[in-house]
């Protein structure tokens, strides 16, 4: 019997105060796959992601994650779903490594110190492990957020434009990480404007727009992004 998809969105309508921000969205995401949302700025990609992780109630359509309606109040949901949005908020008195340690320990990770040390090295933050967030550059803070997404167990990883504020080398490393994620059986839903990242990691793309949303092959979506962002 085929496994149920991790995410199933059918004519999903998202918006604010009942006003949709994009055309209804339909897609499925299976375990071990990566689906990318592409589209112009303000097209509604992040809003769809926020609905998937429970930060926004859908205005219509169907959205099921792990075959259940989205409810982030459910501990099981929070255990399985990791997300990295553009939340630039940090505890001012906690260091970089303490933020990661808090996340790891909060998920019950054994040997959290070692796990954190490994991720600090992977995301180029070892030298800043004892720094407070205020001392980090914008790109370093972005890497901290990304590391926090990988420092905990997960079945679904949701990333909102993870390439933002990263240099080319770090984008390549991130792409490798996402590929490893899907090879390990994880599902990844991301929004992106980077055609290279899209080609490297995504199995399918969903073009989100005002008039109609459609599923696209990865190459076609990458070309579309390149045309939109020459």
């Amino acid at each position, binding site marked *: 019997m085929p496994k149920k998809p991790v995410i199933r969105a059918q004519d999903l309508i998202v918006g604010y105060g009942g006003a949709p921000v994009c055309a209804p969205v339909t897609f499925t995401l299976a375990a071990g796959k990566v689906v990318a949302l592409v589209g112009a700025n303000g097209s509604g990609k992040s809003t769809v992601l926020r609905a998937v992780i429970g930060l926004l109630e859908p205005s219509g359509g169907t959205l099921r994650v792990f075959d259940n309606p989205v409810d982030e109040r459910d501990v099981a949901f929070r255990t399985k779903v990791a997300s990295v949005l553009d939340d630039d908020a940090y505890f001012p008195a906690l260091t970089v490594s303490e933020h990661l340690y808090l996340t790891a320990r909060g998920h019950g990770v054994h040997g959290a110190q070692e796990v954190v040390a490994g991720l600090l090295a992977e995301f180029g933050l070892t030298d800043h492990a004892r720094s407070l967030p205020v001392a980090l550059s914008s790109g370093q803070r972005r890497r901290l957020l990304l590391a*926090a997404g990988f420092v905990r167990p997960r079945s679904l990883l949701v990333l909102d434009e993870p390439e933002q504020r990263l240099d080319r080398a770090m984008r390549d490393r991130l792409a490798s990480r996402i590929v490893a994620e899907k090879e390990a059986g994880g599902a990844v839903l991301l929004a992106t404007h980077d055609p290279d990242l899209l080609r490297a990691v995504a199995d399918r793309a969903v073009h989100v727009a005002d008039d109609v949303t459609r599923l696209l092959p990865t190459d076609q979506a990458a070309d579309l992004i390149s045309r939109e962002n020459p």
Partner: protein
Amino acid sequence: MTTTDHDDEPEVQPFEVGEVPSAKSIRRFTSQAANSRGGATIGSLLGGVYYAVISIAISVAVALGAAQAMRASLPEAPDVEAPLQLSLATLVVVIIVALAGALLSLAGRLGPVGAGGAEAAWWLALPVDRRGLLRPAARRLPLLAGFVAAILVALLDAGLLADPGLRVARVATTAALVAVGIVLLAAVGQSAGVSRRSLALAGDVLLFLAPVAAVVLARVGWSVDEVPGAPWWFVVGLVPVVAALAVVVDRRLGRIPSRTLRESGSVATQAVGAVVSMDSRELGRALTDGAAAPVRRWLSPLTTARGPASALVTADLVVLRRSARHVVQLVVAALVPVLVSTVPQLASPIGVLFAVLIAGSVAMSATGEGARRAEMAPILDRLLPLEAKTVRRLRMVVPAAAMLLWSLVAFAAVGRWASDVPGWIALGIASTPVWAAAAVRGSYRPAPDWGGALVSTPMGALPTGVATVLARGPDLVILCLLPVWIAVLLRTVNAPLLYAQIVLSIIAVAIASSIRTRSLMESLMDAQEQERAARR
């Protein structure tokens, strides 16, 4: 990297996972890390707590003393019944009801339970018991509300009505319990999915109805001789009710969705930041935006917009009309002088003067929303082909219209008190431009200057840069309404005062039209500095 099958879903976990820690340990870890870098010793912490407690105690004692002194100066209520009269006790009841409405409105706008930026981003995603994470935040607002309510009602009861000590304690305890209960009820509503907007609206309606009901009571001649004091059995009975509410809230904390907690936390953080930095404009924005409808059900056709000038005025009018809080503020402020002038003990020249000054300032601040928005986003003013000074003048149109309505009600009441309604209405109309000018001047004031000189006072250092900035707007009210204040103190309006008011109104409009951001004194000092530099 390994994969494990858990509930049929592959879980990516390149590490061993054990038991999830308690929420308390998460909170403790965060606070311990913060404390270790705070640089504060136990001694300095205790010292801070000591000074805070002493300061609050002194402030309460001073306020109590002032209220009692005021009560001692109040005349006895006359035996003769006037046609429109309200007892002091009735007014106190009305104030208490209005305060309850204001508290519900505030609790609704602030959440009342929320999680600020870092907590929302780093705590709410953890699979720990959310109730444990939110418990301290859920306690904060009810306790603060209870404390403030106890002091306010004690001041009203002991100060204005001079009731004996034990009764004051009972009334203050009742007030505290009711205030805690109101905030807890708002929290129950929040956990049940009631929107912040609905909770705030319920509070606004109560706030609106309180003075309206008082005017109706004064009209029909119904008053109470003393504030109905709750007996001790009632106070004791309130305790389990409030405790039960607290338990319900605690049990339902985990039901509040993350999005609601984030929104509430964001508003509360913005509001606290505004209070700490003494930025009343930012506080107003936080409280207004916190309960704003995300999408308008109707779009204004802007039919009165025929050109840039009328477009700007129309936009200001739409902004004011869409803010229920400001409309309620205007109506309530208009009724304050009406009520004060009908209470024999308060209807002295000083009492009426304070009523007009405070109510006028409250109403004035409600009318400047368009200008405040424009100050926050200067591009709004630059979009139209109008001179900056013209924009300032046009921004006074809506405040002037709103304050004209306020003046007609407030000054008619003062006129009835002074037995010369037409004269006082004329003075009210003549003074309207000053209120409008003050609203616009206050809206366009620069951000508080924390880099200015500090003046040492017995109450601590006073940042003069902040005080100078905050005085912009209220300074016009005090200085350019001098004829009104003199007329109230003399209880009469005459032609010289009316003419003086017209002249001062013109001056106030001219001052508020100025686009200079620095004061006259600062400009003179700048000029002096430039002169010195040129000589060198």
